[in-house]
């Protein structure tokens, strides 16, 4: 008997997150279930706004939902906010592997956050490490970040900007190009993937890489209720397809990211790679951000300190 699952996404049908993410998941689910499970993708907020996707999944209105980590890290799934902490990630694939370790059954995040919420993450799709990827002003030293107006996605990244002496600015991603061009902002915390898709390297001549200001991204989630309504074979197909799609995504973006960095450097972007000493200095200055996050969530009864340690350990493997 054939089951059809509705997958909702806020991303446009042509966005990499759909083509190299949701679509891969859908195809793999089809293959692994021997054609028994079919996934209908509704991109571009057709099945629900980005903000309501988590609730739609929980209510059973959508079977698989694409949820931006930044939208759930404040309220629904605060431990997912570990992705927004500075100085942890090296590559997207390392982060993805680590998230699977913490988010799979028995893992810290699964047991303390996903399970109590009745939510299961099928696939993790983080972006490559964020940083002041492009900047109007030259950044060679950590002290160059002082007073820099930096667009960021909010959440813990706002704290990171402040910890480094910058001025956090909030604006929607499509507005960044003009803001950068006009000098309304000096720099933007992004991956080079986003820099390329908004063409930002054409309006800012400096940039940095080599230190993660966080790796936000998307989660493909499903409710436990819906998951448990499926046969064991189908469940296994979903789990495996989720892992395959995640690994496909991370190798894809890691590759594209390094290609972009190379192209932009060749095209004349003045790219600074943080030195080991500077990384240590950045870590020192942003240590308070991680501590504050952990303290705040520990206070709410979430094992945030443990999660950071486990996440660090998983990344070190």
């Amino acid at each position, binding site marked *: 008997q054939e089951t059809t699952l509705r997958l909702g996404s806020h991303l446009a049908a042509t966005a990499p997150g759909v083509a190299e993410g949701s679509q891969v998941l859908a195809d793999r689910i089809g293959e692994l279930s021997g054609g028994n499970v079919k996934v209908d993708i509704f991109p571009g907020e057709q099945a629900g706004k980005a903000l309501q996707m988590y*609730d739609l999944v929980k209510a059973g209105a959508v079977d698989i939902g694409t949820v931006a980590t930044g939208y759930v*890290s*404040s*309220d629904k799934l*605060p431990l997912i*906010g570990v992705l*927004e902490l500075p100085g942890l990630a090296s590559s997207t694939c390392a982060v993805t592997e680590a998230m699977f370790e913490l988010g799979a059954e028995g893992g810290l995040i699964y047991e303390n956050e996903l399970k109590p919420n009745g939510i299961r993450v099928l696939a993790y799709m983080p972006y490559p490490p964020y940083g002041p990827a492009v900047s109007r002003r030259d950044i060679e030293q950590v002290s160059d970040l002082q007073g820099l*107006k930096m667009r960021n996605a*909010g*959440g*813990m990244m*706002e*704290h990171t900007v*402040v910890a480094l002496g910058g*001025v*956090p*600015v*909030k*604006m929607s991603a499509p507005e960044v190009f003009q803001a950068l061009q006009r000098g*309304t902002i000096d720099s933007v915390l992004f991956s080079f993937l986003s820099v390329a898709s908004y063409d930002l390297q054409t309006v800012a001549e400096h940039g940095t890489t080599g230190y993660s200001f966080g790796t936000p991204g998307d989660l493909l989630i499903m409710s436990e209720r819906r998951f448990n309504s499926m046969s064991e074979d189908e469940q296994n197909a979903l789990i495996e397809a989720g892992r395959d799609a995640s690994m496909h995504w991370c190798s894809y973006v890691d590759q594209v990211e390094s290609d972009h960095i190379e192209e932009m450097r060749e095209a004349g972007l003045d790219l600074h790679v943080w030195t080991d000493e500077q990384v240590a200095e950045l870590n020192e200055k942003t240590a308070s951000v991680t501590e504050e*996050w952990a303290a*705040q969530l520990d206070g*709410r009864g979430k094992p945030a300190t443990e999660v950071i340690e486990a996440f660090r350990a998983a990344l070190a493997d």
Partner: protein
Amino acid sequence: MPTPQTDPSPPSVLARASDLVDRALSAVEKGTLALAVLALFGIMVLIFIDGVLRYVANSPLTFVVDVVVLYLISAGFLLVLSYTLRHNGHIHVEVFADMMPKRLQRLLSGLAYLGAAPVVGIMAIEMIHLTLESYVQGEVLIGLYPMPLWLSKAIVAFSLAVLELRILHMGIFNTLSALTNRPRLAIRMSLPIDNPEEEMV
């Protein structure tokens, strides 16, 4: 224009009940109107000051976007849902309805409101549920300013709840008015055309 129907008999118990509900709801709606206007002026002032500080003093107000998006826009767009319905401010296609006899018009509008009641009711109840959940969990915005997220949901929930009461009021009494043929019971509303400047779009 048809001649206005008059109802010489003294107001019945039903009519008095309707008036009572109307007055109570109107009092609440007046409060929501004041809050909504304040929210709109607040949006104007905050965005203006943020912009001026950004361009002139090079120091934006980081909290403005969050305050506007979380609270003021919801308040400005939704708080007066009920007030606007009562004052016939929600656009509708009148041409065909105006061709119908008055009594049929009242019946159909009453039934339409009664049909809308469960829909808006579900919206309100679900939103109240989400608000309480958020409040119990102590959800705050993770960022420089830990703003409570339940308050944002509460504004929407409250707006929908007042709207639901108004829809029930208008649905019940318009239907009764048509069924018992007592125009006095129907909720009288001004036509938007009486105040063209207020249509505004």
